């Protein structure tokens, strides 16, 4: 263990350990504020600088909460499994922190780290992400079981059933991107989307993003899928017997998992650290990445303020009868359109290159059939060809560049491509609508005798 290695490890991990927990503190404040405003309340506004009347919009609230949590009594039920009761919150936090390492965050001090330590930039980062995020289920079950409480156990069982069900659409919607890029490496996926060629702009990418986001909500037990901790039904679910610092750890783990899964959504669909002004300031990529994560978190909070909780049967029906078939169909559609574009480009690529090269290589009758080459046209077409097997949007952008410069073949491909784009959106919508009609639960709530 040399000094270099330790330095590298610290440089690679400490920023994650500092940035995300502090973001967690800020997010709890943001969530409380936003929910309050949604309900026409004010939210925390008194806790600012201690011993003064300066409120700072209640920004001191997370710190106050943290201090409170640490000093609270740690109550362990008499019948509880003491060891598991202690291990569960730790086990909930560790996978959440671990999966943060798989996000392709490019810190500006990354160049001080030798290649060896970037071990987390694994070739199978996406698979690892799903594998390790699945461990959170176990922690929740452990907590529910170890508490020796009916409500905890019910919450734990609900959590396991829900997370196992929603992991499948989550994975299948990510498969689309993996299929397009041809790599499980998070860095390569991020690189394939540079220059605003985000996958969310493609029809299948949009559908996959929506499915992914919904499944991610369920996976992190966020409202409207917060059945495992439904206050009005089972007190606090698996949290019921937790207090003090253990509860804080659970809370932290849940929020870190939210960050991580939003981070994966950003990586897969929203172009990772891609954004404006990157050429002049490459360090902005981290800022864009975290800003996008925050955007997704804000939507999660917004949804929490808007939607009521699902019933258990609706939850399961939604996962198995709606999201799962839709995501499988989406994979099929993505493959079809992708290969259709590939085939179309392949069929004309010789002609494309020929049309550009022709005026130079063949003199004579070819000259008057083809328009004169415009500067940059060849580069545009080459760029498009470079992108065709990786990123639909990228290819389309290059083709449109070539088309603008007066390239007939590109124009036809462009029109054809956007036709397919619109068609697949329509097909996806019709499919979703049909599935919705089929999968809607016909069960009516029982009529109560004394209901008004």
């Amino acid at each position: 263990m040399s000094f270099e290695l330790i330095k590298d490890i610290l440089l690679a991990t400490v920023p994650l350990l500092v940035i995300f927990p502090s973001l967690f503190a800020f997010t709890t404040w943001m969530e409380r504020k936003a929910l309050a405003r949604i309900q026409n309340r004010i939210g925390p506004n008194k806790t600012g600088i201690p011993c003064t009347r300066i409120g700072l919009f209640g920004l001191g609230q997370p710190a106050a909460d943290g201090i409170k949590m640490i000093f609270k009594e740690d109550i362990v039920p008499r019948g509880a499994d003491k060891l598991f009761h202690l291990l569960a919150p730790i086990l909930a936090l560790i996978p959440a922190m671990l999966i943060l390492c798989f996000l392709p965050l490019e810190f500006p001090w990354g160049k001080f780290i030798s290649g060896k330590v970037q071990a987390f930039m694994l070739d199978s980062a996406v698979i690892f992400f799903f594998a390790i995020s699945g461990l959170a289920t176990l922690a929740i079950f452990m907590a529910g079981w170890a508490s020796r409480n009916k409500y905890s156990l019910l919450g734990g069982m609900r959590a396991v059933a829900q997370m196992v069900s929603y992991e499948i659409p989550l994975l299948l919607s990510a498969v689309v991107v993996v299929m397009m890029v041809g790599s499980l490496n998070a860095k390569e996926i991020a690189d394939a989307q540079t220059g605003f060629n985000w996958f969310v702009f493609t029809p299948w990418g949009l559908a996959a993003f929506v499915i992914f986001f919904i499944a991610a909500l369920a996976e992190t037990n966020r409202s409207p899928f917060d059945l495992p901790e439904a206050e009005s039904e089972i007190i606090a679910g698996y949290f019921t017997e937790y207090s003090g610092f253990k509860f804080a750890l659970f809370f932290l783990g849940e929020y870190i998992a939210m960050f991580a899964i939003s981070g994966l959504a950003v990586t897969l669909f929203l172009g990772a650290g891609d954004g404006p002004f990157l050429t002049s300031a490459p360090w902005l990529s981290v800022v864009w990445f975290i800003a996008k994560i925050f955007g997704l978190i804000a939507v999660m909070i917004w949804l929490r303020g808007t939607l009521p909780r699902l019933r258990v049967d609706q939850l399961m029906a939604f996962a198995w009868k709606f999201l799962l078939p839709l995501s499988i169909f989406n994979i099929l559609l993505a493959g079809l359109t992708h290969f259709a574009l590939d085939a179309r480009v392949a069929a004309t690529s010789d002609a494309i290159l020929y049309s550009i090269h022709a005026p130079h290589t063949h003199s004579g009758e070819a000259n008057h059939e083809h328009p004169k080459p415009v500067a940059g046209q060849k580069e545009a077409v080459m760029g498009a060809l470079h992108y065709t097997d990786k990123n639909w949007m990228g290819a389309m952008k290059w083709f449109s560049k070539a088309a603008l410069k007066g390239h007939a073949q590109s124009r036809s491909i462009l029109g054809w491509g956007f036709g397919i784009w619109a068609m697949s959106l329509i097909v996806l919508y019709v499919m979703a609508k049909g599935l919705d009609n089929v999968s809607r639960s016909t069960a009516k709530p029982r009529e109560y005798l004394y209901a008004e």
Partner: protein
Amino acid sequence: MSILGGGIFKGMAVTLRNFIGSYFYKERLTTNDYEWRAKDKLPQSIGDYPKEEGEQLRDTTTVNHYSRNFPMLLHDTGEPMDTIRCVACQICERECPPQCIYIEKSTEKKENADGKPQFYPAKFDIDVSVCMSCQICVEVCPFDAIVMNSQFELSTPNRFGGLLVRRDDLLKSNDYYHKIHPQEAAARDQKMVADKAAKEAKKKAAAEKAKAAAEARAAAAAEAEAKEDTE
């Protein structure tokens, strides 16, 4: 045919309107900034809070006619213990789900507002820390003696005795009830008057019936006597 997921977007538009509107329109805010007085000393017991009606309803915006927080005992105009409605029947004590009411019946009877001798509660305590404001005691009371108060300043640093409210602190006049819940109080008074009238009418009818029966009996007896005499 509605748009798939359209309902979600509609809902999100509503919450967004609330979110933004709450920053610009003060009247949207349902809660008021509570006056924080760090120097103020809290009373050691809930009973020490000012009893006068005006004091408790200082903040008229947060307390409306429908608010309810904690029960109180009603008395009619006059000296509280002389006109108390409660007769210590202990129905509320039995019905209270969290069992926060404690009643001790008096040993001797005392005249109530109507001039009728009745039992009265020698002790009537309610524990605020246990009460869940369900209002079941109000529903079951046959004498309209217990109703909900809307006093909300109930905090005290004394968590043992301070949260137990005694009979004398629970007693509030009917006028106060009219002030905090005008519609409900009016309806209750009307009902009580109607009940009383119905009761009196019933009594009257019963008395008349009894009178008629007695007369008939007397007539029958006279007849029988007359018959006996003839024989």
